[in-house]
C-alpha cells in the first residue's frame, strides 16, 4: 500500500487514521510475510509484546502470592495507599501522551522533536519514580517498613518491581538518545522508539493494575 521512496528523500508518511505507515529501504530486512518493508519495526514491537507475557507472569505470581498470603493468617494489617500515589499516577499517564508524541516525531523523522519529547518523557518517568520514593517515605514515616507486615511487604515489592521495569524503559530512552547522536539510520531508530513507546504504555497499564490491587485488595 505505501509508496516506495528512497531513504534520501522526504519521509513517506501515509496517515490512515489507525496509525502511521512508513516505507523503509529494502535493505532493512523486511520478511516474507511483510516484504519490502518495516521488518525491523515489526520485529522490535513483536519482541515487546512477547516480553509483556513474561513480565505479566512475574506480576501474576506476586498477585497470587499476595492473595494467598492475605488469607493465610490473621497478621495482615491493610496499608492505606499514600496520597502521593495519585500524583505519580497522573504523571505516568501524562508521560504516556508525551511518549506517543515522541513516537510521532520519530515517524516524521524529526531528530529534534524526537529528542525533545523523549527527554520530557524520561523526565516524567523520573518524576514518577521520585513520587514512588515519596510514597515509600510516607509509609516509613508511619512506621511501616518492609518486614513490619506482609501487606507492607507486598506494597514495597510491587512498587519496586514496577519501578525497576520503568527504570529499564528510561535506560532505553537514553539508548535512543545515543542512537540519535550517532546518526544511526532512521528505520532502526524508529524501531527502538516504537518498541519503547509500546513498552511504556504497557507499564502505564501495569501500574494502574498494581494501584488497583493496592487500593482495593487490601
Amino acid at each position, binding site marked *: 500500500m505505501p509508496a516506495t521512496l528512497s531513504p534520501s528523500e522526504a519521509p513517506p508518511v501515509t496517515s490512515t487514521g489507525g496509525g502511521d505507515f512508513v516505507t523503509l529501504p529494502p*535493505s*532493512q*530486512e523486511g*520478511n*516474507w*510475510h511483510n516484504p519490502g518493508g518495516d*521488518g525491523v519495526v*515489526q*520485529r522490535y514491537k*513483536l*519482541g515487546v509484546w*512477547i*516480553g509483556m*507475557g*513474561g*513480565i*505479566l*507472569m*512475574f*506480576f*501474576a*505470581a*506476586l498477585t*497470587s*502470592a499476595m492473595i*494467598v*498470603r492475605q488469607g*493465610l*493468617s*490473621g*497478621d*495482615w494489617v491493610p496499608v492505606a495507599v499514600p496520597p502521593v500515589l495519585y500524583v505519580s499516577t497522573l504523571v505516568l499517564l501524562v508521560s504516556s501522551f508525551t511518549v506517543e508524541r515522541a513516537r510521532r516525531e520519530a515517524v516524521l523523522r524529526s531528530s529534534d522533536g524526537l529528542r525533545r519529547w523523549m527527554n520530557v518523557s524520561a523526565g516524567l518517568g523520573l518524576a514518577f519514580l521520585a513520587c514512588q520514593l515519596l510514597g515509600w517515605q510516607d509509609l516509613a514515616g508511619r512506621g511501616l517498613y*518492609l*518486614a513490619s507486615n*506482609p501487606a507492607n*511487604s507486598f506494597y514495597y*515489592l510491587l512498587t519496586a518491581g514496577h519501578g525497576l521495569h520503568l527504570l529499564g524503559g528510561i535506560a532505553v530512552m537514553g539508548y535512543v538518545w545515543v542512537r540519535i547522536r550517532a546518526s544511526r539510520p532512521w528505520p532502526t531508530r524508529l524501531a527502538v522508539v516504537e518498541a519503547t513507546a509500546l513498552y511504556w504504555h504497557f507499564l502505564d497499564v501495569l501500574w494502574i493494575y498494581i494501584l488497583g490491587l493496592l487500593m482495593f485488595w487490601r
Partner: protein
Amino acid sequence: MTEVQLSKEVAEYTEVHRHPEPKSFIWKYIFSVDHKVIGIQYLLLAVVAVFVGMALSLLVRLRLVCPECSYPLLGQFFPVGAPEGVMTPEFYLAMLTMHGTVMVFMVLTTAPQGGFGNYFLPIQIGAADMAFPRLNMLSFWTTFVSFLLLMAAFVVEGGAPMSGWTGYPPLSAVPEATLPGIGQDLWLASIAVFCIASLLGALNFIVTTLDLRAKGLTMMRMPLTCWTWFVTAILGLLAFGVLLAAGVLLLMDRNVGTSFFVPAGLVVSDKVIDHSGGSPILWQHLFWFFGHPEVYIAILPGMGVTSHVLSTFARKTVFGYRAMVYAIAAIGGLGFVVWGHHMFVSGMSPYSAFVFSVLTMCIGVPSAIKTFNWIGTMWGGKIRFTSPMLYSIGFVSLFVSGGLSGIFLGQPTVDLYFHDTYFVVAHFHLIMGVAAIFGMFAGLTFWFPKMFGKMMNEPLSKIHFWITFVGVYAIFGPMHYLGMLPHPRRYAEITSVDYLGTGGAAELHMFITVAAVLTVLAQFIFLYNFVKSIFSGKECREENPWEATTLEWTIPSPPPHDNFAGKVPHVYRGAYDFALKGAKRDFAMQCNDDKAVYGEPAPQASGD
C-alpha cells in the same frame, strides 16, 4: 569476507542484508553475537556443568553405600563438609542439592534449547541469525554469571545449600536451620539470574520463529525440532517469571525478615523463629507452577530431535506430522495445569488432588500419540542404524519406561505411598534426566558434521551408546524396587530400619553405585570422541552427509558467518519428504521445487 559456495539444492533465493564478520578474537569467539558461536558456548557450559553434576552424583552414591568411608582428597577440599574425608550428612544433602540444581538448570535447560536451539533454529528456518543477536549474547553471559554464582556456593563458609533443588522452606528460608553461611543466598541469586537469562532467551526464540522464517516455510512445514524449540520457549517465557517472583520472596524471607513462607511459631533448635504467618505450601505452589513446565522445557527439544532423527534414518516421513505438532502443543499447555501432582501429600484437598490427577493423566494422551508416531515412523522403514539413530531409539525406550511410572505417581492414593521414595527418583531420572540426555547425544552426533565439518567416530559412539543405555537401566531400574520397599529418598543413611539398612536394600544400593561408576566412566569415551573428533576427526566437507531434508544441510560444514551468504532459500515442501513416489532420489530437501525432485514434467505438487 570469504566467498561462500551456494548450494545447488536450493531452487530459489531471496537477497537479504549481509552481516559483516567480526575480525578480532574477542568479538568473534567471546562476546560474539553469532547464534552459532553462542550455541556452542551454551553447549560447552553444559558439558562443564554435566561433569560437575556427575561428580556430585558419584559423591552421593558413595556416601549411600559407605557412610563411614574416608576420601582424604575430599577432606582437603571440604574440611567442614568432609572432615578427614568422611562426608557428613549435611554434606551429603548439599551434594544432592547441587547435583539436582546443576543438572536441571545448567544442563537440561541450557543444552537442548540454548545450545542446539540457538545453533540450528535460525538455520533450519532459513534466517541469518536470531531476531535479536545482542540480546542472545546477553542471555548467554547472564546464564554464565548464574553458573558462577552457583559454583561460588561450594566455596563460601557453610558450603552449598542443602534444601534440595526444589529449595523447600522452612529449611531454605530459615538460616538458623542450617549451617551459617550464604550458600542458600547464592543459590537463590543464581536461580534468579538464570530466570532473567532464560526469559530473554525465550523472547528471542519466539520472535525468531514467528518473524524470520524463509519464504514458503509455513508453521506447518517447520521441522519438528523448530516446533519443540518454539513451544519450549513459550513455556520458559511463562514459567521463569513465576520462579523469579518466588525466588525474590524467598530471598526476602531469608535476609530482610519478611514472612512469606515461614510460619508463625516455628521452633528451630529450641528457639522460636521470629517470623509470622507465612506458608511453606505457598512456595510449593509457586515453585511447581514453574517446576512442572520446566520438566517439559528439558524434554521437549529431545522429542523434537528424536522425531527428526528417526525420520531421517528410517527414510520415512514423520508418521502423523500434524498430530505430532498438536501433541507438542498439548503437552506444553497441559504442563501448566498439573503442578499440584507434586504436592499430593502437602495436605491439599482430595478434590483438588483429584482434579490435578485427572489433568495429569491427560498428558498420557499426547505422550502416547508421540510414542506411537515414533514407532509408526520407524515401522517398515529402511532403517540406517547410525549412532544418532541409536540414541533416538534409546530416547523412545527411556521415555516409555519413565512415563509408565508416571501413571502410578499421578494417582494421589498411590502417590501417598511412593512420595519421597526412590520410586520418584527412578521416575524423573529416566524421563526427564536420562531421556533428555539421550536427546542431546542424538543431536550432537547428528549435527556434529555440520557444526565442525568432521565426523565423530561411529564405533566409539556405538560402544558409548550401549554401555550408557544398559548402564542407566541398571542404575534406575532397581530404584523402582527400592521405592516399593519403600526406601525414602534424600536420606544420607538408614540406621534403625533393618530391612533397609543392612538387608537387601544395601546390596541393591551397592549394585546401583557400581553401575553408576561404570556409566560415568563411559561418558569419558564420549568426551574423548567429541574432543578428538573436533581436532582430528574424519573430514566431512559434504553439505549433506546424512541425506537429510532440512535447510541446515544446504550450507557448507561448518556454516559460514551469516549462514546463507546474504541470501535466504525458498521453501517448497514439508520437512520430512522421504521415499517419494516417482522422485529422482529417495528424499526431497525443503528447498527443492518439484522440478528438482521429479524432473520435467512435475506429476503433482507434494503436500505439506
